């Protein structure tokens, strides 16, 4: 059995865990991060991608608002290539309480958020698709952030500074030594191999799954998951973030992101057992579309691409299962204080917006336990790809402007290295998102993309209008070429990708999305006969015909 020794162990590869790995690496602490699926595959990647200005909290939750605007300013400096500085609006619709508009302005003033009352006319000039019926509008420094890119570049930095990461690797047990945690037992989900990681401190950054991790350590830390659903539209129908200026509710935000727009979100308390298997319901979709339409009327004529949902982790800080003392902010637990288990920390709660701050707080506490005095620098040093503003990329004959721009958009200053990279040709693999074979090879080699679903998060393969079919087949080939994966494994990856994609498409199966699905189904069954690989048992294909004829 493989055994790894390190100083700090991080469980969970969401934004927070990835941020902690980077923070440790910057402080010179040797660390290992273990993630059950992939970076940003859980709550982080099921987020609407809003870089909060804090205005949404300015009326009700002053400290969250202050945290948000502070992090907003930091992230715009260190994570440039993950962020689009779109700006945002809070618009009042007829029938909405006009008093909220004034409350929001006052709240923003108080918490230091640069909000400006711009009036209906200017709002419509900036965002022509807006509902012309709006009565008032406030401009706020909202922006959009790509959570996949954010997690990935944190990891890239950590790994380049010596951190070790294992994805698709599940924690099966906590190794105890007396009254302290001393390591973790894991199982590689792809190979089935077991491994142990021994370390001097363990940081549980597994979000809503943290309850299960704590249980492995014999600790009761209750989570109260809340489900949030979102719908993605095929076009970018707005250029600014549009918030509805009223008390927070369902369907009150429209976020542009890359080539699409997203309507969010619902909020529903769910039983803890159901977090592993969630689906978006028709009612949720209907509610989101109905509310989204009030903000942007032409939304009803826009193709819906997919729907997905995430789980917000709300933590019960006290002991006991009453569900009182639920915190909505950042929760940092030193389990020595709380449960008498040393060298074990849980960081939970919070939001994507405050991932860096959460990482800083968790790393500070872990470093105190390790006796490390180095200070946090994650707010000062830009992430890889964001070192400086645009660097010119040497034009190459074969790459059109759109390929160069898209690669730059996704990888910032690393784009030049990618396009000049070794070991792959200059082909375009995904026409929807302008992803080249070079970018795919880079993601497989340097960004820990272990399968085609991971590639989706690294490169946006399969996130465009076609939702990925031809590109997925080409990626299966790329894994064979770049990583030496065998054909059976590559076939499995292709099927897994198609099934993953299906989960998001299924709830919105109408219009062009249904047409696209029908086309994909014909290709997969008619041209590829993939059902024959999936199907079990006699009479499902597999050459029985020819056998019959040979007798």
């Amino acid at each position, binding site marked *: 059995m493989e055994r790894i020794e390190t100083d700090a162990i991080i469980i969970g590869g969401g934004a927070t865990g990835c941020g902690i790995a980077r923070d440790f690496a910057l402080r010179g602490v040797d660390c290992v991060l273990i993630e059950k699926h992939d970076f940003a595959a859980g709550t982080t990647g099921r987020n609407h991608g809003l870089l909060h200005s804090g205005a949404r909290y300015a009326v009700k939750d002053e400290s969250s608002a202050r945290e948000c605007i502070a992090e907003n300013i930091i992230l715009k400096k260190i994570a440039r290539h993950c962020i689009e500085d779109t700006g945002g609006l809070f618009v009042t619709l007829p029938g909405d309480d006009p008093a909220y508009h004034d409350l929001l302005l006052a709240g923003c003033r108080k918490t230091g958020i640069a909000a400006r009352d711009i009036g209906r006319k200017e709002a419509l000039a900036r965002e022509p698709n807006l509902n012309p019926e709006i009565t008032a509008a406030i401009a706020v420094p909202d922006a959009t952030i790509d959570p996949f890119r954010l997690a990935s570049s944190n990891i890239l930095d950590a790994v380049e500074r010596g951190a070790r990461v294992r994805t698709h690797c599940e924690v099966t047990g906590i190794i105890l030594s007396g009254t302290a945690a001393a390591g973790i037992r894991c199982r590689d989900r792809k190979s089935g191999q077991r491994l142990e990681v021994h370390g001097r401190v363990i940081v549980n950054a597994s979000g809503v799954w943290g309850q299960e991790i704590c249980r492995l350590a014999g600790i009761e830390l209750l989570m109260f998951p809340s489900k949030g659903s979102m719908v993605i539209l095929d076009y970018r129908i707005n250029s600014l973030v549009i918030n509805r200026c009223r008390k927070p509710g369902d369907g009150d935000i429209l976020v542009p992101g890359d080539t699409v727009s997203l309507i969010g979100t619902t909020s529903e308390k769910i039983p803890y057992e159901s977090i592993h298997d969630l689906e978006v319901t*028709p009612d949720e979709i209907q509610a989101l579309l109905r509310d989204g339409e009030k903000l942007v009327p032409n939304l009803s004529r826009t193709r819906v691409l997919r729907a997905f949902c995430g789980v917000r982790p709300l933590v019960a800080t006290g002991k006991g299962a009453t569900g009182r003392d639920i915190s909505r902010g950042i929760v940092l637990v030193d389990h020595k204080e709380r449960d008498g288990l040393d060298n074990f920390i849980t960081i939970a709660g919070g939001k994507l917006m405050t991932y860096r701050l959460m990482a800083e707080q968790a790393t500070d506490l872990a470093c105190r336990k390790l006796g490390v005095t180095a200070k946090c620098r994650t707010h000062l040093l830009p992430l890889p790809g964001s070192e400086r503003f645009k660097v010119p990329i040497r034009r190459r*004959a*074969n790459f059109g402007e759109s390929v160069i721009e898209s690669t730059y958009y996704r990888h910032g200053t690393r784009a030049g290295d990618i396009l000049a990279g070794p070991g792959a*040709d*200059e*082909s*375009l693999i995904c026409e929807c998102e302008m992803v080249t*074979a070079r970018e795919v090879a880079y993601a497989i080699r340097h960004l820990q993309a272990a399968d085609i679903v991971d590639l989706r998060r690294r490169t946006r393969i399969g996130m465009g209008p076609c939702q990925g079919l*031809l590109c997925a*087949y*080409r990626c*299966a080939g790329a894994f*064979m070429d770049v990583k030496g994966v*065998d*054909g*059976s494994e*590559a*076939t499995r990856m292709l*099927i897994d990708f*198609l*099934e993953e*994609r*299906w989960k998001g498409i*299924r709830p919105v*199966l*109408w*219009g062009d999305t*249904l*047409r696209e*699905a*029908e*086309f994909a*189904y*014909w*290709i*997969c*069954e*008619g*041209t*590829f*006969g*993939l*059902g*024959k*690989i*999936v*199907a079990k048992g*006699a*009479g*499902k*294909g*597999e*050459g*029985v*015909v*020819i*056998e*019959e*004829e*040979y007798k």
Partner: protein
Amino acid sequence: MNESHDYDCLIIGGGLAGLTCGLACLEAGLSCAVVSSGMSALHFSSGSIDLLGYNADRTLATSPVDALPGFIEKNPDHPYARCGAETIMEAMAFFGRELEAQSAPMYANGRENHFHITAMGTLKPTFLSPASVFTREIRAAFEKRPAIAILDVKGFRDFHPGLAAANLRKNKLFADCPITCGEIELPGQTPAAGGARDMRSVDVARILDATTNLEAVAGAITAAAGRADIVALPAFLGLNRYQEILAGLRRATGRLIYEIPTLPPSILGMRLDQALKSRFAALGGVFIARDTVDAGRIEDNQVISVHTTGQKDDIRAACYVLASGSFFSKGLVSRYDRMFEPVFDCRLDTPPDGRSLSGAAFLSPESHAFIRAGVITDGQLNPQTADGRTIANLFCAGAVLAGYNPVIEGCGGGVAIATGYAAAKAIRARLHPPQPTATAGPQ
């Protein structure tokens, strides 16, 4: 044809069903036009014609001819039940003859299914295949457990031999066949800068159509195939000269070369599409391309005329055929809250709600309910208006029909051909009521 209309028969949709129906109408001496809005589903098909791959109990059907009566009995609302086993086989024979007349014959043994190999190395039961995909000769060669080479062309975007090889090796039929992969360069082609795979199947087909140096291509194949007796290439061996190219390469390499269907655009499907359209034109059919029928006028349970987006005047015919395909081809339209047939608003059979449209897994033996959605017809293939009145001079054919799943039943091509042919038969009976018994088609 009389003065009051432009054609005896107007067909909406120029795919497999519409063209088969058109050919059968023309052969019966009727005047006929097809309105086609664009590329038909043939452009992304395997190029083989599935008649009935699986029995009603989902086991493989060795012989569709034997399986059809039982299948029809178990599936009384299937389009095949509207045709009857006899007409279905008559239609297949007719289709085969039409392609032979166009010098584009397909392989069939008349009774039993054969298999074709997919790009992922799986096998699919089918009834008719292009001669480059399956023949008796190919079958005989496979019986000898030969060495197989699966080759790709450098710069081609959409084929990975390794994927096909891996799954083919897992098939017990090929367990004893050594399978290798390789790549050839097309002679005279400067590879794209950076070795980009920037060619699609059509690009390769055009290069081969234009090549004067088949010997060099054959030399490259021989070198890449090593000791293999059988060489599989993606289906891009020409669009126009394909028979000559295939024969030439087989001769020059001494290997048995065959084609594997590729990702779209499907050259095999395009060859079939071209052959059917050429035959339709040769028989005097009018093919109105790039136009869309968007509305029909119905009076007294009859279609009086149809309107197209591209022409000012309505088109009038004695009979009409709706062969407009399913959702992808826009023969059926789905909206958030309903589904409808956009030209005549025919009555549909659809799943009760959005939830039941599809299965939880994308690929599974259960398939998806939306595939079965479509227009309801009677035994004559006549549909009904939304309020339930039968439209006597409108006939439906192909994927617009409800009640079948071409994928899990393995019958997509067969239903298109059989219903297209049966619609033509019904039209002939309507316009020229039988004196003595009529037989189908020309002899």
